[in-house]
Protein backbone atom coordinates (compact mmCIF):
# COMPACT_ATOMS: atom_id res chain seq x y z
CA UNK A 1 0.00 0.00 0.00
CA UNK A 2 2.94 2.31 -0.60
CA UNK A 3 1.03 5.08 -2.27
CA UNK A 4 0.23 8.77 -1.94
CA UNK A 5 -3.24 8.21 -0.46
CA UNK A 6 -1.93 6.07 2.39
CA UNK A 7 0.84 8.58 3.02
CA UNK A 8 -1.65 11.46 3.20
CA UNK A 9 -3.86 9.44 5.53
CA UNK A 10 -1.03 8.54 7.91
CA UNK A 11 0.32 12.10 7.88
CA UNK A 12 -3.10 13.55 8.60
CA UNK A 13 -3.55 11.18 11.55
CA UNK A 14 -0.09 11.94 12.96
CA UNK A 15 -0.73 15.68 12.67
CA UNK A 16 -3.88 15.13 14.71
CA UNK A 17 -1.86 13.21 17.30
CA UNK A 18 -3.12 9.72 16.50
CA UNK A 19 -2.36 6.70 14.31
CA UNK A 20 -4.16 4.12 12.14
CA UNK A 21 -4.95 1.90 15.12
CA UNK A 22 -5.69 4.80 17.49
CA UNK A 23 -2.35 4.60 19.28
CA UNK A 24 -0.33 7.47 20.70
CA UNK A 25 3.08 8.25 19.20
CA UNK A 26 5.02 6.42 21.88
CA UNK A 27 2.71 3.50 22.46
CA UNK A 28 3.39 -0.15 21.63
CA UNK A 29 0.79 -2.43 20.04
CA UNK A 30 -0.64 -5.38 21.96
CA UNK A 31 2.21 -7.72 22.84
CA UNK A 32 2.20 -11.43 23.59
CA UNK A 33 5.26 -13.57 24.27
CA UNK A 34 5.01 -17.37 24.33
CA UNK A 35 8.13 -19.38 25.14
CA UNK A 36 8.56 -23.08 24.28
CA UNK A 37 6.17 -23.25 21.31
CA UNK A 38 8.56 -25.55 19.37
CA UNK A 39 9.65 -28.19 21.88
CA UNK A 40 12.04 -30.02 19.49
CA UNK A 41 14.29 -26.95 19.60
CA UNK A 42 16.29 -26.43 22.80
CA UNK A 43 14.63 -23.03 23.09
CA UNK A 44 11.86 -21.20 21.24
CA UNK A 45 9.56 -18.23 21.59
CA UNK A 46 6.75 -16.75 19.56
CA UNK A 47 6.14 -13.01 19.74
CA UNK A 48 3.03 -11.29 18.48
CA UNK A 49 3.32 -7.52 18.34
CA UNK A 50 0.11 -6.29 16.80
CA UNK A 51 -0.03 -8.30 13.57
CA UNK A 52 3.73 -8.79 13.43
CA UNK A 53 4.47 -12.38 14.30
CA UNK A 54 7.95 -13.83 14.75
CA UNK A 55 9.31 -17.12 16.00
CA UNK A 56 12.79 -17.64 17.42
CA UNK A 57 14.28 -21.14 17.54
CA UNK A 58 17.42 -22.03 19.48
CA UNK A 59 19.54 -25.11 18.74
CA UNK A 60 22.53 -25.99 20.92
CA UNK A 61 24.96 -28.25 19.08
CA UNK A 62 28.51 -29.53 19.39
CA UNK A 63 31.08 -27.32 17.68
CA UNK A 64 34.70 -26.22 17.71
CA UNK A 65 36.10 -23.13 19.42
CA UNK A 66 37.03 -20.09 17.31
CA UNK A 67 40.77 -19.46 17.05
CA UNK A 68 40.49 -16.02 18.61
CA UNK A 69 38.21 -17.23 21.42
CA UNK A 70 39.57 -20.64 22.39
CA UNK A 71 37.94 -20.78 25.81
CA UNK A 72 34.27 -20.23 25.03
CA UNK A 73 31.32 -21.40 22.97
CA UNK A 74 29.87 -19.67 19.90
CA UNK A 75 26.69 -17.81 19.12
CA UNK A 76 25.22 -17.50 15.62
CA UNK A 77 22.15 -15.50 14.74
CA UNK A 78 20.24 -15.49 11.47
CA UNK A 79 16.93 -14.09 10.32
CA UNK A 80 14.56 -15.37 7.64
CA UNK A 81 11.98 -13.04 6.16
CA UNK A 82 9.83 -15.98 5.09
CA UNK A 83 8.12 -15.45 1.74
CA UNK A 84 4.83 -16.40 3.37
CA UNK A 85 5.09 -13.46 5.78
CA UNK A 86 4.32 -10.68 3.29
CA UNK A 87 3.43 -10.30 -0.37
CA UNK A 88 6.70 -8.45 -1.06
CA UNK A 89 9.03 -10.99 0.62
CA UNK A 90 10.70 -13.14 -2.04
CA UNK A 91 12.16 -16.63 -1.69
CA UNK A 92 15.92 -16.78 -2.05
CA UNK A 93 19.13 -15.96 -0.18
CA UNK A 94 18.85 -13.51 2.76
CA UNK A 95 18.22 -9.93 1.67
CA UNK A 96 20.30 -7.02 3.08
CA UNK A 97 17.28 -6.26 5.31
CA UNK A 98 17.28 -9.78 6.78
CA UNK A 99 21.04 -9.63 7.36
CA UNK A 100 20.82 -6.23 9.04
CA UNK A 101 17.98 -7.49 11.26
CA UNK A 102 19.95 -10.55 12.38
CA UNK A 103 23.13 -8.56 12.97
CA UNK A 104 21.45 -5.84 15.03
CA UNK A 105 19.67 -8.40 17.24
CA UNK A 106 22.95 -10.35 17.50
CA UNK A 107 24.94 -7.29 18.59
CA UNK A 108 22.56 -6.51 21.45
CA UNK A 109 22.39 -10.10 22.69
CA UNK A 110 26.18 -10.47 22.43
CA UNK A 111 27.02 -7.13 24.03
CA UNK A 112 24.65 -7.81 26.94
CA UNK A 113 26.29 -11.22 27.46
CA UNK A 114 22.85 -12.85 27.47
CA UNK A 115 24.46 -16.20 26.64
CA UNK A 116 27.23 -17.02 29.09
CA UNK A 117 29.64 -18.18 26.38
CA UNK A 118 32.60 -19.14 28.64
CA UNK A 119 30.31 -21.70 30.31
CA UNK A 120 29.86 -23.39 26.91
CA UNK A 121 33.47 -24.59 26.88
CA UNK A 122 33.84 -28.40 26.97
CA UNK A 123 37.43 -29.26 25.95
CA UNK A 124 40.11 -27.57 23.85
CA UNK A 125 38.58 -29.14 20.75
CA UNK A 126 34.92 -29.02 21.71
CA UNK A 127 32.54 -26.24 22.68
CA UNK A 128 28.79 -25.71 22.35
CA UNK A 129 27.49 -23.67 19.43
CA UNK A 130 24.24 -21.80 20.02
CA UNK A 131 22.22 -21.10 16.88
CA UNK A 132 19.36 -18.62 17.04
CA UNK A 133 17.08 -18.54 13.99
CA UNK A 134 14.58 -15.72 13.72
CA UNK A 135 11.57 -16.68 11.60
CA UNK A 136 9.26 -13.89 10.50
CA UNK A 137 5.80 -15.43 10.08
CA UNK A 138 3.77 -12.29 9.43
CA UNK A 139 5.18 -8.84 8.71
CA UNK A 140 3.49 -5.73 10.03
CA UNK A 141 6.48 -3.54 10.90
CA UNK A 142 9.00 -3.28 13.74
CA UNK A 143 10.77 -6.60 13.28
CA UNK A 144 13.77 -5.37 15.29
CA UNK A 145 11.93 -5.17 18.62
CA UNK A 146 9.86 -8.30 18.03
CA UNK A 147 12.96 -10.31 17.08
CA UNK A 148 15.01 -9.05 20.04
CA UNK A 149 12.20 -10.07 22.38
CA UNK A 150 11.84 -13.47 20.71
CA UNK A 151 15.59 -14.16 20.74
CA UNK A 152 15.99 -13.12 24.38
CA UNK A 153 12.99 -15.14 25.52
CA UNK A 154 14.00 -18.23 23.53
CA UNK A 155 17.56 -18.11 24.96
CA UNK A 156 16.40 -17.43 28.52
CA UNK A 157 14.05 -20.42 28.40
CA UNK A 158 16.33 -22.82 26.48
CA UNK A 159 17.46 -26.15 27.88
CA UNK A 160 21.06 -27.30 27.83
CA UNK A 161 21.99 -30.64 26.24
CA UNK A 162 24.54 -32.85 28.01
CA UNK A 163 27.73 -34.25 26.56
CA UNK A 164 28.50 -37.66 28.05
CA UNK A 165 30.68 -40.49 26.72
CA UNK A 166 31.14 -38.85 23.31
CA UNK A 167 27.38 -38.47 22.83
CA UNK A 168 25.02 -35.53 22.98
CA UNK A 169 21.97 -36.09 25.17
CA UNK A 170 19.04 -33.89 24.26
CA UNK A 171 16.20 -35.52 26.17
CA UNK A 172 15.42 -36.37 29.76
CA UNK A 173 16.34 -34.23 32.71
CA UNK A 174 18.39 -31.29 31.46
CA UNK A 175 19.50 -27.99 32.96
CA UNK A 176 19.06 -24.57 31.42
CA UNK A 177 21.29 -22.83 28.90
CA UNK A 178 23.58 -20.56 30.96
CA UNK A 179 22.34 -17.00 30.48
CA UNK A 180 22.59 -13.65 32.24
CA UNK A 181 20.58 -10.44 32.24
CA UNK A 182 17.74 -9.42 29.99
CA UNK A 183 17.76 -7.42 26.78
CA UNK A 184 15.06 -5.58 24.88
CA UNK A 185 15.03 -2.91 22.21
CA UNK A 186 12.93 0.10 21.28
CA UNK A 187 12.74 1.11 17.64
CA UNK A 188 11.62 4.59 16.61
CA UNK A 189 10.60 5.77 13.17
CA UNK A 190 10.57 9.29 11.83
CA UNK A 191 7.38 9.47 9.79
CA UNK A 192 6.12 12.74 8.24
CA UNK A 193 8.11 14.75 10.78
CA UNK A 194 6.86 12.81 13.80
CA UNK A 195 8.91 10.43 15.91
CA UNK A 196 6.84 7.35 16.68
CA UNK A 197 7.49 4.09 18.46
CA UNK A 198 6.69 0.61 17.13
CA UNK A 199 5.85 1.46 13.50
CA UNK A 200 3.42 -0.80 11.66
CA UNK A 201 4.04 -1.80 8.03
CA UNK A 202 2.27 1.23 6.55
CA UNK A 203 4.09 3.68 8.81
CA UNK A 204 7.39 1.92 8.25
CA UNK A 205 7.01 2.15 4.48
CA UNK A 206 6.98 5.97 4.79
CA UNK A 207 9.66 6.32 7.48
CA UNK A 208 12.57 8.63 6.62
CA UNK A 209 14.75 7.38 9.45
CA UNK A 210 14.76 4.61 12.00
CA UNK A 211 16.62 4.19 15.27
CA UNK A 212 16.88 0.99 17.28
CA UNK A 213 18.17 1.20 20.84
CA UNK A 214 18.81 -2.09 22.65
CA UNK A 215 19.35 -1.90 26.38
CA UNK A 216 19.27 -3.84 29.59
CA UNK A 217 18.45 -2.41 33.01
CA UNK A 218 21.55 -0.27 33.26
CA UNK A 219 23.16 0.49 29.92
CA UNK A 220 22.63 0.71 26.18
CA UNK A 221 23.97 -2.45 24.51
CA UNK A 222 23.46 -1.79 20.80
CA UNK A 223 22.16 0.88 18.47
CA UNK A 224 21.39 1.05 14.78
CA UNK A 225 20.23 3.96 12.71
CA UNK A 226 18.55 2.89 9.49
CA UNK A 227 17.11 4.42 6.31
CA UNK A 228 18.03 7.59 4.42
CA UNK A 229 17.09 10.34 6.90
CA UNK A 230 18.67 11.43 10.17
CA UNK A 231 17.94 12.53 13.73
CA UNK A 232 19.18 15.59 15.66
CA UNK A 233 21.33 14.97 18.77
CA UNK A 234 18.40 16.24 20.86
CA UNK A 235 16.08 13.71 19.25
CA UNK A 236 18.53 10.89 19.95
CA UNK A 237 18.88 11.97 23.54
CA UNK A 238 15.06 12.05 23.95
CA UNK A 239 14.74 8.61 22.41
CA UNK A 240 17.32 7.25 24.85
CA UNK A 241 15.24 8.57 27.78
CA UNK A 242 12.05 7.08 26.33
CA UNK A 243 13.79 3.74 25.73
CA UNK A 244 14.88 3.36 29.35
CA UNK A 245 11.31 4.11 30.45
CA UNK A 246 9.49 1.95 27.87
CA UNK A 247 11.85 -1.02 28.01
CA UNK A 248 10.80 -1.76 31.60
CA UNK A 249 7.37 -2.89 30.31
CA UNK A 250 9.00 -5.15 27.74
CA UNK A 251 11.43 -6.71 30.20
CA UNK A 252 8.51 -7.30 32.58
CA UNK A 253 6.59 -9.02 29.79
CA UNK A 254 9.57 -11.27 28.99
CA UNK A 255 10.10 -12.11 32.66
CA UNK A 256 6.43 -12.88 33.11
CA UNK A 257 6.41 -15.18 30.06
CA UNK A 258 9.30 -17.25 31.41
CA UNK A 259 7.98 -17.22 34.97
CA UNK A 260 10.69 -15.07 36.56
Amino acid at each position, binding site marked *: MNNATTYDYITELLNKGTREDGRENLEYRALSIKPGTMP*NAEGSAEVNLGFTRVLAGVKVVLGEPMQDRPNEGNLAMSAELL*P*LAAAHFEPGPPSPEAIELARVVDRGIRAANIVDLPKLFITEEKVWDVYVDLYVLNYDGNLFDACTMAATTALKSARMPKYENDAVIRE*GSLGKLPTKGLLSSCTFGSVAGHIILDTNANEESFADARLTIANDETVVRAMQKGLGGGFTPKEVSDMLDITFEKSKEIRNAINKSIGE
Partner: protein
Amino acid sequence: MITMASSQEKPQLIVDGKRLDGRDAGDLRPISIQTNVVKNAVGSAYIEWGNNKIIAAVYGPKEALPKHTANPERAVIKCRYAMSPFSSLEDHGRTGPNRRATEISKVTREVFENVVMLEKFPGSEIDIYVEVLQADGGTRAAGVTAAAVAMATSGIPMTDLPFGVSIGKIGETIVVDLNKIEDNYSDADVPMVISPRQDKILLLQMDGNMTKDNIKEAIDLAKKAGETISKLQSDALRAPYLEVMEKYKGEKSSYDEKQAD
Protein backbone atom coordinates in the same frame (compact mmCIF):
# COMPACT_ATOMS: atom_id res chain seq x y z
CA MET B 1 14.36 -42.89 24.96
CA ILE B 2 15.86 -43.85 21.64
CA THR B 3 19.19 -42.46 20.53
CA MET B 4 19.35 -42.68 16.79
CA ALA B 5 22.68 -42.10 15.12
CA SER B 6 24.66 -43.85 17.82
CA SER B 7 22.80 -47.14 17.61
CA GLN B 8 22.96 -49.44 14.63
CA GLU B 9 20.38 -51.68 16.21
CA LYS B 10 16.85 -51.38 14.98
CA PRO B 11 14.43 -50.62 17.80
CA GLN B 12 11.38 -52.81 18.21
CA LEU B 13 8.73 -50.56 16.62
CA ILE B 14 5.71 -52.72 17.39
CA VAL B 15 5.37 -54.44 20.77
CA ASP B 16 2.29 -56.59 21.49
CA GLY B 17 0.48 -55.04 18.55
CA LYS B 18 1.05 -51.48 19.82
CA ARG B 19 3.38 -48.92 18.26
CA LEU B 20 5.93 -46.97 20.33
CA ASP B 21 3.52 -44.09 20.87
CA GLY B 22 0.70 -46.48 21.80
CA ARG B 23 -1.11 -46.39 18.46
CA ASP B 24 -2.62 -49.35 16.63
CA ALA B 25 -1.48 -50.01 13.06
CA GLY B 26 -4.40 -48.08 11.55
CA ASP B 27 -4.34 -45.08 13.91
CA LEU B 28 -3.46 -41.54 12.90
CA ARG B 29 -1.70 -39.22 15.31
CA PRO B 30 -3.84 -36.37 16.74
CA ILE B 31 -4.39 -33.69 14.09
CA SER B 32 -5.63 -30.13 14.52
CA ILE B 33 -6.03 -27.51 11.81
CA GLN B 34 -6.56 -23.76 12.14
CA THR B 35 -7.33 -21.38 9.29
CA ASN B 36 -6.27 -17.76 8.62
CA VAL B 37 -3.12 -17.77 10.70
CA VAL B 38 -1.03 -15.49 8.44
CA LYS B 39 -2.82 -12.18 8.26
CA ASN B 40 -0.96 -10.91 5.18
CA ALA B 41 -1.64 -14.03 3.10
CA VAL B 42 -4.68 -14.50 0.86
CA GLY B 43 -5.26 -17.88 2.49
CA SER B 44 -3.44 -19.74 5.24
CA ALA B 45 -3.60 -22.66 7.62
CA TYR B 46 -1.66 -24.08 10.54
CA ILE B 47 -1.59 -27.80 11.17
CA GLU B 48 -0.39 -29.72 14.18
CA TRP B 49 -0.09 -33.36 13.22
CA GLY B 50 1.45 -35.27 16.10
CA ASN B 51 4.61 -33.30 16.81
CA ASN B 52 4.67 -31.79 13.32
CA LYS B 53 3.92 -28.08 13.32
CA ILE B 54 3.47 -26.64 9.85
CA ILE B 55 2.26 -23.34 8.50
CA ALA B 56 0.95 -23.04 4.92
CA ALA B 57 0.06 -19.85 3.08
CA VAL B 58 -1.22 -18.92 -0.36
CA TYR B 59 -0.61 -15.64 -2.21
CA GLY B 60 -2.22 -14.70 -5.51
CA PRO B 61 -3.48 -15.01 -8.13
CA LYS B 62 -1.16 -12.22 -9.27
CA GLU B 63 0.75 -11.33 -12.42
CA ALA B 64 3.22 -14.13 -13.17
CA LEU B 65 6.77 -12.80 -12.79
CA PRO B 66 9.31 -13.06 -14.31
CA LYS B 67 7.18 -12.78 -17.43
CA HIS B 68 8.60 -15.84 -19.19
CA THR B 69 7.07 -18.05 -16.46
CA ALA B 70 3.55 -16.93 -17.43
CA ASN B 71 1.19 -19.15 -19.41
CA PRO B 72 -1.41 -17.26 -21.49
CA GLU B 73 -3.92 -20.12 -21.10
CA ARG B 74 -3.78 -20.75 -17.38
CA ALA B 75 -2.31 -19.79 -14.01
CA VAL B 76 1.02 -21.23 -12.97
CA ILE B 77 1.63 -22.52 -9.45
CA LYS B 78 4.87 -21.85 -7.61
CA CYS B 79 5.55 -23.78 -4.45
CA ARG B 80 8.16 -23.62 -1.73
CA TYR B 81 8.37 -26.29 0.96
CA ALA B 82 11.11 -25.67 3.53
CA MET B 83 12.09 -26.89 6.97
CA SER B 84 13.25 -24.59 9.74
CA PRO B 85 16.80 -25.22 10.95
CA PHE B 86 15.41 -25.79 14.47
CA SER B 87 12.70 -28.23 13.38
CA SER B 88 14.26 -31.45 14.60
CA LEU B 89 15.40 -32.78 17.94
CA GLU B 90 18.88 -33.35 16.49
CA ASP B 91 21.42 -30.91 15.06
CA HIS B 92 20.86 -27.48 13.61
CA GLY B 93 19.71 -27.84 10.01
CA ARG B 94 20.62 -25.84 6.98
CA THR B 95 18.51 -22.77 6.26
CA GLY B 96 16.33 -22.75 3.15
CA PRO B 97 15.44 -25.47 0.66
CA ASN B 98 17.93 -28.29 0.05
CA ARG B 99 17.61 -31.01 -2.63
CA ARG B 100 15.03 -32.94 -0.61
CA ALA B 101 12.93 -29.81 -0.05
CA THR B 102 13.19 -28.88 -3.71
CA GLU B 103 11.78 -32.26 -4.72
CA ILE B 104 8.96 -32.00 -2.18
CA SER B 105 8.18 -28.49 -3.43
CA LYS B 106 7.85 -29.93 -6.95
CA VAL B 107 5.57 -32.84 -6.07
CA THR B 108 3.45 -30.53 -3.88
CA ARG B 109 3.07 -28.09 -6.76
CA GLU B 110 2.00 -30.96 -9.01
CA VAL B 111 -0.71 -31.96 -6.52
CA PHE B 112 -2.26 -28.50 -6.74
CA GLU B 113 -1.94 -28.32 -10.52
CA ASN B 114 -4.45 -31.17 -10.48
CA VAL B 115 -7.09 -29.55 -8.29
CA VAL B 116 -6.81 -25.77 -8.68
CA MET B 117 -8.93 -24.38 -11.55
CA LEU B 118 -5.95 -22.79 -13.25
CA GLU B 119 -7.81 -21.92 -16.44
CA LYS B 120 -9.72 -19.25 -14.50
CA PHE B 121 -6.58 -17.12 -14.12
CA PRO B 122 -4.61 -17.03 -17.38
CA GLY B 123 -1.24 -15.29 -17.20
CA SER B 124 -1.15 -15.26 -13.42
CA GLU B 125 0.73 -17.11 -10.70
CA ILE B 126 -0.42 -18.62 -7.43
CA ASP B 127 2.22 -19.05 -4.71
CA ILE B 128 2.07 -21.81 -2.12
CA TYR B 129 4.41 -21.69 0.88
CA VAL B 130 4.78 -24.60 3.26
CA GLU B 131 7.07 -23.90 6.23
CA VAL B 132 7.81 -26.81 8.53
CA LEU B 133 8.47 -25.24 11.92
CA GLN B 134 8.80 -28.54 13.75
CA ALA B 135 9.17 -31.97 12.13
CA ASP B 136 8.33 -35.46 13.30
CA GLY B 137 7.86 -37.57 10.17
CA GLY B 138 5.23 -37.23 7.46
CA THR B 139 5.78 -33.51 6.89
CA ARG B 140 5.05 -33.57 3.15
CA ALA B 141 1.67 -35.22 3.71
CA ALA B 142 0.81 -32.87 6.56
CA GLY B 143 2.09 -29.94 4.49
CA VAL B 144 -0.17 -30.75 1.54
CA THR B 145 -3.12 -31.26 3.90
CA ALA B 146 -2.53 -27.78 5.36
CA ALA B 147 -1.84 -26.18 1.97
CA ALA B 148 -5.14 -27.55 0.65
CA VAL B 149 -6.99 -25.84 3.51
CA ALA B 150 -4.97 -22.64 2.92
CA MET B 151 -5.92 -22.74 -0.77
CA ALA B 152 -9.58 -23.23 0.12
CA THR B 153 -9.56 -20.25 2.52
CA SER B 154 -8.03 -18.11 -0.24
CA GLY B 155 -11.19 -18.57 -2.28
CA ILE B 156 -9.26 -19.76 -5.33
CA PRO B 157 -11.58 -22.33 -6.93
CA MET B 158 -10.60 -25.98 -6.64
CA THR B 159 -12.24 -29.13 -7.93
CA ASP B 160 -11.43 -31.05 -4.77
CA LEU B 161 -9.79 -30.78 -1.35
CA PRO B 162 -6.83 -33.18 -1.41
CA PHE B 163 -5.37 -34.72 1.76
CA GLY B 164 -2.02 -36.34 2.44
CA VAL B 165 -0.99 -39.27 4.61
CA SER B 166 2.04 -41.47 4.83
CA ILE B 167 1.66 -45.25 4.98
CA GLY B 168 4.52 -47.48 6.07
CA LYS B 169 5.57 -51.06 6.50
CA ILE B 170 7.02 -52.25 9.77
CA GLY B 171 8.05 -55.88 9.54
CA GLU B 172 5.04 -57.48 7.85
CA THR B 173 2.54 -54.93 9.18
CA ILE B 174 1.23 -52.05 7.08
CA VAL B 175 0.79 -49.02 9.34
CA VAL B 176 -0.76 -45.60 8.93
CA ASP B 177 1.06 -42.29 9.51
CA LEU B 178 4.69 -43.03 10.33
CA ASN B 179 6.33 -40.78 12.89
CA LYS B 180 10.02 -39.87 12.70
CA ILE B 181 11.42 -42.89 14.53
CA GLU B 182 9.19 -45.26 12.59
CA ASP B 183 10.17 -43.54 9.35
CA ASN B 184 13.88 -43.98 10.18
CA TYR B 185 13.62 -47.72 10.85
CA SER B 186 10.60 -48.86 8.83
CA ASP B 187 10.82 -51.32 5.96
CA ALA B 188 8.97 -49.01 3.63
CA ASP B 189 7.47 -45.56 3.52
CA VAL B 190 4.75 -44.47 1.08
CA PRO B 191 3.69 -40.83 1.27
CA MET B 192 0.46 -40.30 -0.65
CA VAL B 193 -1.88 -37.49 -1.55
CA ILE B 194 -5.39 -38.39 -2.62
CA SER B 195 -8.13 -36.31 -4.14
CA PRO B 196 -11.15 -37.94 -2.46
CA ARG B 197 -13.98 -36.78 -4.72
CA GLN B 198 -12.13 -37.73 -7.86
CA ASP B 199 -10.68 -40.82 -6.17
CA LYS B 200 -7.29 -40.09 -7.70
CA ILE B 201 -3.81 -40.46 -6.30
CA LEU B 202 -2.04 -37.15 -6.87
CA LEU B 203 1.19 -37.87 -5.04
CA LEU B 204 2.79 -41.24 -4.59
CA GLN B 205 6.34 -41.88 -3.51
CA MET B 206 7.82 -44.98 -2.02
CA ASP B 207 11.06 -46.36 -0.76
CA GLY B 208 11.90 -49.63 0.97
CA ASN B 209 10.42 -52.98 0.04
CA MET B 210 6.79 -53.83 -0.56
CA THR B 211 4.87 -56.52 -2.39
CA LYS B 212 2.06 -55.74 -4.82
CA ASP B 213 -0.42 -56.72 -2.12
CA ASN B 214 1.32 -54.46 0.40
CA ILE B 215 0.87 -51.50 -1.93
CA LYS B 216 -2.80 -52.26 -2.52
CA GLU B 217 -3.31 -52.48 1.21
CA ALA B 218 -1.42 -49.20 1.70
CA ILE B 219 -3.72 -47.42 -0.74
CA ASP B 220 -6.81 -48.81 1.01
CA LEU B 221 -5.47 -47.68 4.39
CA ALA B 222 -4.67 -44.21 3.03
CA LYS B 223 -8.23 -43.85 1.72
CA LYS B 224 -9.63 -44.98 5.04
CA ALA B 225 -7.41 -42.54 7.00
CA GLY B 226 -8.48 -39.90 4.51
CA GLU B 227 -12.06 -40.04 5.76
CA THR B 228 -10.83 -38.70 9.10
CA ILE B 229 -8.41 -36.18 7.57
CA SER B 230 -10.94 -34.82 5.06
CA LYS B 231 -13.43 -34.29 7.87
CA LEU B 232 -10.84 -32.38 9.93
CA GLN B 233 -10.08 -30.23 6.88
CA SER B 234 -13.70 -29.31 6.24
CA ASP B 235 -14.38 -28.79 9.95
CA ALA B 236 -11.45 -26.35 10.06
CA LEU B 237 -12.84 -24.48 7.06
CA ARG B 238 -16.30 -24.36 8.59
CA ALA B 239 -15.20 -23.37 12.13
CA PRO B 240 -15.00 -19.57 11.68
CA TYR B 241 -18.46 -19.50 10.05
CA LEU B 242 -20.00 -21.63 12.79
CA GLU B 243 -18.59 -19.16 15.31
CA VAL B 244 -20.29 -16.28 13.52
CA MET B 245 -23.56 -18.23 13.22
CA GLU B 246 -23.47 -19.00 16.92
CA LYS B 247 -22.82 -15.34 17.73
CA TYR B 248 -25.76 -14.02 15.73
CA LYS B 249 -28.13 -16.90 16.42
CA GLY B 250 -31.77 -15.80 16.28
CA GLU B 251 -30.94 -12.31 14.95
CA LYS B 252 -32.42 -11.22 11.65
CA SER B 253 -29.99 -10.33 8.87
CA SER B 254 -30.46 -7.40 6.51
CA TYR B 255 -31.22 -10.04 3.88
CA ASP B 256 -34.09 -11.42 5.97
CA GLU B 257 -35.46 -7.92 6.45
CA LYS B 258 -35.37 -7.24 2.71
CA GLN B 259 -37.27 -10.44 2.07
CA ALA B 260 -39.92 -9.36 4.59
CA ASP B 261 -40.38 -5.98 2.84
